[in-house]
């Protein structure tokens, strides 16, 4: 059994990793009784968490197949990633074979973001560059979305997927969002409203959300990632930006090792 632990910045990233894991037959684990005992310590047992009735229980999302077992934790921001990894690795009785970290580079230099996280991780040998996976134990890699090179976020990748899977819808969404001016006070009533939209990735995020809203009206983008063709469409899966992420996830997961073990047995 190959086990891997992914820590990502937000819930959208969780769904992207989950979709790409599904390409290897991994399915979401719904019931505690079906969960690999290896991960049991990561499941909170009390509610409300920290007395907060509104807060989501910080349980990882689990995926499993016959040969793989994966937990994905949403850390809620780059500043929390290292401490989440350290707490989890201490809580578990043994370390998983793979550790993958996904973050974005919306408002910072890619290399600097990568170095910040790598230097804080409790593990050694996190690969030589963003997106590379070290060959130590565990195998560790830190991926900076969208492509380990350009500044941006997950939505940059999703929009490229939409060009293949939903070109007409994407064109409409862009036609609506692109002309909007973040400084137009007749649209945005205050600084808080214009805040996220005025960020570098603001328009790209809004465009991806528009596409998702048509596909799954009233639902969040993460539901659309699960259900729609963003990362199912054959041409989307063959995009360089997606193939690069798939290679990273496969390396952390140890897909080659598992395949070798299967073919030799």
């Amino acid at each position, binding site marked *: 059994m190959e086990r891997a632990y992914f820590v990502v910045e937000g819930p959208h990233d969780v769904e992207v990793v989950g979709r790409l894991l599904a390409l290897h037959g991994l399915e979401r684990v719904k019931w505690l009784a079906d969960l690999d005992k290896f991960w049991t310590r990561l499941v*909170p047992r*009390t509610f409300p968490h920290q007395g907060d009735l509104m807060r989501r229980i*910080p349980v990882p999302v689990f995926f499993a197949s016959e040969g793989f077992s994966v937990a994905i934790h949403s850390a809620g921001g780059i500043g929390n990633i290292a401490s*989440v990894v350290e707490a989890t690795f*201490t809580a578990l009785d043994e370390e998983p074979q793979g550790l993958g970290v996904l973050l974005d580079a919306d408002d910072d230099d890619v290399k600097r973001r990568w170095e910040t996280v790598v230097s804080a991780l409790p593990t050694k040998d996190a690969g030589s560059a963003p997106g590379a996976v070290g060959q130590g134990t565990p195998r560790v890699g830190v991926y900076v979305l969208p492509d380990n090179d350009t500044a941006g976020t997950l939505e940059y990748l999703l929009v490229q997927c939409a060009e293949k899977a939903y070109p007409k819808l994407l064109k409409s969404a862009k036609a609506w969002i692109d002309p909007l001016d973040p400084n137009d006070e007749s649209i945005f009533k205050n600084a808080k409203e214009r805040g996220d939209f005025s960020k570098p990735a603001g328009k790209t995020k809004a465009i991806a959300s528009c596409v998702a809203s048509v596909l799954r009206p009233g639902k969040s983008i993460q539901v659309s990632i699960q259900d729609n063709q963003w990362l199912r469409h054959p041409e989307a899966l063959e995009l360089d930006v997606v193939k690069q992420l798939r290679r990273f996830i496969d390396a952390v997961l140890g897909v080659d090792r598992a395949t070798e073990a299967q073919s030799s047995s």
Partner: protein
Amino acid sequence: MRPVAFPSLHIQSFRGLRDLHLEECGPVNLLVGGNNSGKTSILEAVLLLASPVDPRQWEGAVDLRTTWPLADVRFGASGVARLDALEWLFPHGEGTIGAIDIKGGGPVGHIVATAERIVGEPPGEPIVSAEGLIEASFRVRQRNQEDLFEQPETLVEPGLVIDISLLWEHRPVGERQDRFKMVLWETGRSFRGRVRVSKPRLSVAFASPISHRSDGYLATRVSRLLRAKKKHRAIALLQQLDAKVVDLVMVSPEDFDSGSAIPRGGAAPSLHVEYEGAGLVPVHAMGDGMRRALHFAVLLAEVESGGVLLIDEIEVGMHTSVLRDVFNWLCQACRDAGVQVFATTHSLEAVDAMLEGIPDEDLVLYRIRESRARRFSGELLRVSRAELGQEVR
């Protein structure tokens, strides 16, 4: 971090533990882990290391797991030969008894002890010789009232020789090792503390999960405080928890014939807590939680600065709603007194209460499993428990 008696602990071999490292111990150390993981063994190891050449400490280490002397006396002893119990402190292999090897990271040094069964004649009196020979017996096992009046016969009987080496790495060459031989007998004359052992000794006290339930035991400990002129410390501690506590007193049962010039003899005096407004309340009438808190206060009043307080199953007797306040009180008192705490628990609520009541820098949690310790600093424990809700036990 402030100085502590045990900055680290390395148990190379003791009971079932092998090569266990507790690194960077804190002022308050919580030990968690499954049944039979060795949590209580760690407390026993600390107890021995604190005073390795005191026969009473070896006796105490044996008693930690038993109900003696709290209940077994009533039922004619536990049936477990105490030398057998003592022998089981040593690691057992197939037909062999290995050496105890425990290293403290601080002033307590390092002990290596071996055990050998012998048959012989116990001495009439305990012996402590200048040459490092200590010979003593456990308390006479009193099976029935008649035995109390029988003179112990001098018989050949089994004993246990414990060869103890004390090692100090930081001392100059030639002064790094002291060697003692201790001979302990099952019966015969008790050590009873009449012979003082001047060799290394760290102030230490131990609370078992049941000791607070024995009125006699609590009364004995308060009497000890009284003799040592430390009772006021225990009262001051209790007052921090309940401002209405006035005093701890031993009270005889009420003498109904109060007009008589000479009071009637009756049952033994029992320990009472005097409260402002409520008067004297016998400890036996109190709830489990208050008795446990009283026990903690009495033990803490006994331990000197630089010493260690050991607590097995710290949550026992207390409702979850008071855990935070009691732990906060206890740990603050330990901090003020300069006393390090090692405590075991099975309770996640106790872990969370510790996190709520104690500064992160004072707290360390170790999860023990198969002689390996996973260390959570207070800060890491807060992420694991408060942020992620993980199971750390």
